[in-house]
């Protein structure tokens, strides 16, 4: 009994790491292709058919570079920062329900666990910027921290509203409640169980997800045009590569979370179609496409406007939504 459980966990561990790394590699490709199509270019096309081997070539290039540790950096912090970004991202996959059976651990507090690990990623960026002893890196990490603190609040507030409506933090159960057609998804659930502001909550959650994963238009961590490469300025070769993979793994986590919380996870959109992991992946990649789409549509916003958006708009609205939901659940 114990050994089967152990083997199951090991299989999940390998699968999750492979999934995270494969996604990180091919999301870079998707990002570049997406950027190209939005700008009416062709994107990578030389390495392999349609440039499909490009991530491999990039990986080899990054790995053959010397792992230079610049003079004056904090040697320990500099080295653990990329790991601190990558590990929590991979850890969060443990609680993500890919399908009814395909979940590494049915954790009762899965949502809480993902949020807990998601905040470690900020620490990774802060340590990276601080350890680099580079002015641009430090400016970037200071920005990242205030940005993430500002956006964690509305994100958690919307998550709380959702938990109030679903009455559980177990992601499997949250998905299970949304079965039986797309009109039962939390996004557009028209029952008395959730407040009518749920679509707004979805928008807020999505915006915060963009911000938490440091994606454009909130990519202060890596504001290429202003801060060289932000927190990653001093990182050579695979150090930079791991940072990058961590970023993309975080995007996958964010998109999975949106899928699970609002779009019904593995549940099929129509009752007569079977539920499967395919639905989950389709929804997740649709969200990721939207994330890429948004990156190549909007310019990076100014920093004070970013904070204004959070403190003046997102937090009041999500607070109002929280109170409304509380009242709604009490009355109906």
């Amino acid at each position: 009994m114990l050994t089967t459980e152990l083997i199951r966990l090991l299989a999940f561990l390998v699968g999750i790491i492979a999934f995270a790394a494969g996604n990180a590699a091919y999301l870079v490709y998707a990002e570049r292709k997406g950027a190209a199509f939005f700008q009416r270019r062709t994107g990578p096309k030389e390495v392999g058919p349609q440039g499909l081997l490009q991530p491999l070539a990039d990986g080899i290039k990054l790995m053959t570079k010397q792992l230079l540790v610049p003079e004056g950096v904090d040697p320990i912090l500099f080295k653990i920062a990329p790991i601190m970004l990558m590990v929590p991202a991979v850890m969060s996959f443990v609680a993500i329900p890919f399908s009814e059976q395909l979940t590494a651990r049915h954790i009762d507090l899965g949502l809480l666990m993902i949020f807990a690990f998601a905040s470690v990623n900020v620490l990774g960026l802060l340590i990276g910027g601080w350890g680099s002893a580079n002015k641009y890196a430090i400016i970037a990490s200071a920005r990242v921290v205030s940005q993430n603190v500002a956006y964690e609040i509305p994100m958690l507030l919307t998550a709380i509203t959702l938990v109030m409506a679903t009455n559980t933090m177990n992601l499997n159960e949250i998905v299970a409640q949304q079965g039986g057609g797309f009109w039962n998804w939390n996004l557009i659930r028209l029952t008395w169980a959730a407040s009518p502001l749920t679509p707004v909550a979805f928008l807020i959650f999505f915006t915060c997800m963009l911000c938490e994963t440091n994606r454009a238009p909130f990519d202060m961590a890596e504001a290429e045009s202003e801060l060289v490469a932000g927190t990653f300025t001093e990182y050579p070769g695979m150090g930079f590569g791991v940072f990058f993979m961590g970023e993309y793994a975080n995007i996958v986590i964010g998109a999975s979370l949106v899928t699970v919380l609002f779009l019904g996870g593995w549940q099929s959109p129509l009752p007569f179609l079977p539920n499967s992991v395919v639905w989950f992946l389709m929804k997740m990649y649709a969200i990721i496409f939207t994330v890429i789409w948004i990156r190549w549509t909007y310019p990076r916003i100014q920093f004070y406007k970013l904070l204004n958006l959070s403190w003046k708009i997102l937090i009041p609205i999500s607070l109002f939504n929280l109170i409304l939901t509380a009242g709604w659940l009490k009355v109906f």
Partner: protein
Amino acid sequence: MPYFSEIYTGTRSLFVGLGITLKEFFKKSVTLQYPHEHLEMPPRFRGHIELIKDTESGMAKCVCCGMCQKTCPSKCISLTGEKREGVKGKVLTSYILDFTTCSLCGMCVESCKFGAITFSKDYNLASTRRSDYVFDLLKRLEGKK
């Protein structure tokens, strides 16, 4: 209330922007795949000069008057010609253009009364050796067909 109307118009404008980029997403790419594809140069493009072939005799139109050589401000043209049996006028035996000093002013093309030289459409010129830019235009003409 300006606060709410601002939120509404702001959110709406974001969706309008997304719509515009999505439309572009499905349009055809405009990239020219340069090393595999080449642009057709416009008729007035000024590359280095080249000789024009006489369609009747199949030889260069040039009559070796040497006007181009004389007008060239950079002295980058040198040509030689000879008399041949049964051919009216002189026959061109060599036409060397030293492109390293040419400034593409076009005085040679303008000065030629016989319309024997023109600008070529060559723009892919790259080399690490100076000698690669000394063009034998007569050979070029013969090789060109």
